């Protein structure tokens, strides 16, 4: 049971923000693909990436938790070396069509929805080192 009313309004808002052609979704809105999601070129090996967000069957009662990014996306550390994405799982068994799974979650109990999830994702990609520090031993 998806809240299609909410989802359509949010997809419209995303299309206004990123461009109608960039935000793609099937008629049942089971997933949303944002193409050309901007990244900081100094921090990533790509200047933009594609984000695939799986909309849960019971959205918005169920939070968005399944998100995939380009399989080739790597973080550039302070020494200029490529690193795996923190919270990213690019192992072969998780790949779907060239994507890697990003274990990224909308906070529990909030009503932020798709817009909030994308905003948080944007913050995550803007300041990746914050998450690297947390992840480092």
């Amino acid at each position: 049971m998806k809240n299609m009313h909410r989802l359509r309004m949010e997809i419209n808002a995303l299309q206004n923000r990123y461009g109608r052609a960039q935000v793609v979704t099937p008629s049942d809105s089971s997933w949303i693909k944002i193409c050309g999601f901007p990244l900081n070129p100094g921090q990533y090996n790509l200047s933009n990436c594609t984000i695939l967000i799986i909309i849960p069957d019971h959205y918005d009662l169920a939070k968005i938790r399944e998100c995939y990014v380009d399989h080739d996306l790597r973080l550039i550390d302070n020494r200029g070396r490529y690193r795996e994405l923190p919270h990213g799982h690019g192992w072969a068994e998780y790949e779907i069509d060239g994507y890697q799974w990003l274990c990224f979650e909308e906070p529990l109990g909030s009503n932020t929805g798709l817009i909030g999830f994308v905003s948080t994702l944007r913050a995550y990609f803007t300041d990746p080192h914050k998450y690297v520090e947390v992840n480092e031993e």
Partner: protein
Amino acid sequence: MKKTILQLCVSYSAAQFAQATQWTDWVLEDVSYAVGFAYQVNGSKTVLIREVLKPGTTEIDRSRYRVEPSPEYLCRLYDKAQALGASCVVQHHTHPFSKHPDFSGIDDEAAYRLHHDLRQINPRVEIVQVVHGRDNHHAKARILNTTNGENRFDYFEDITLTGPAGIQKYPGTQTASLPACDAIKVPAQEERNARAFGVNGVEALHDLRVLILGTGGLGSAMAYQLSRLGFWRITVYDCQRIEATNVNRFYFVTKPRTAIGRFKASYVARGMRLFNPAGKYRAINASIFDERVAAGAIKESDIVVMAVDHDAPRCVAMALAARYGKPLVNVSNAIYLDELQKIKGAFVSCQWFIPREDNYPCLRCQGGINDKEVEAAFMSERLKRLRQKAGYVVGTPESPNAQVIPINSAAAGIAAWELTVWACGIRSPSPWIHYDLMNNSFQVLQGSGDPDCTVCGSSPASCLATGDADFVGGPKNKKEEKS
């Protein structure tokens, strides 16, 4: 061009209706607008009001025969309709010189103009007009139907107020059609009920359409009590079958061996029909997660009684009840054990959620929903597998909780009483009754709603949970899929 439709119901909360129809005086015409969502069940249409926007004195030009909101106010109305994604706008206005008002050509023009402007925002928007006669004695209402490029007004039958005072039909349209009290024949088995609740109360119970979600030990107890109280229109909803561990708590079971393996809902409905063949008792053997069936059942009911075990189905039912403006009663009980498996606590809870009523917020706002449990229940198998392999913690399946029949009966008794006094209009229900059986203490609690809650909030952001899925995208999507 006129045509009368089967039924059109405009559903307000008590506060919204008062706001929409509180006129300054009855010398000059007055107007108010309300925005909401419309949905259709079996040919009858319901408009669920989300927000009332009344123009201020500077935003309106009034005379005895004409009322004209300013363009600035109308822009505000269009903005609101767009922000909410509303599918319907209701225009109330007065005819101060007439007790028995009717619509004039000016009203026709106003409806056409409003429709013309609003369809720029939403091409499928609908306009409902209500005209009130002097001192609110009578009202008439109609909806503008513009299918196939033809403008037609369909006339309505009633306005419904669903709130703490029960379900009330707006006088002037519905009262006349009610039978006189003397004409109502109370069946012998309900004679004592009639002494308690009055003949009109018994009649209200006969007409109220109750949906019981979950017919386990608690749900069957609710069905048993409500059918004996004189509720004649009950739908029971459950997808499970009776198991050997259920029969000692399951009402209506007389021969356990023959009951095991049968659908719970069908069994309960059959038991109620045997007791009262005149009643309309229906069973739906489906899961609450089957959206179309659950939404249809909730649409067709007047009130939802929820007697389920877990928070995930509670969340689904709550969201659907909010979407269609139906009051919901959550009945639950729990037995807590200590480390030595001795009873530490036993509780019964009866919570009311009435959409659009501030004092009856949703279960999540009242703290009655465990978000982590809901999260685990809604997580897809693929995601569970991904999380498990990546080393993220995944919850373990829980064993069934302790359940005994006296606690089910206590919970059902409290809920059935609250439901009955609400349906008969005797008093408003208590928002949250908490009964501690170990300490024999009763508490009436009052939760507070979060204004941004997407289920029961009042802020513009919260409207995202409202709106009929079928209306918003159903038919259009089907066409798209075909093409």
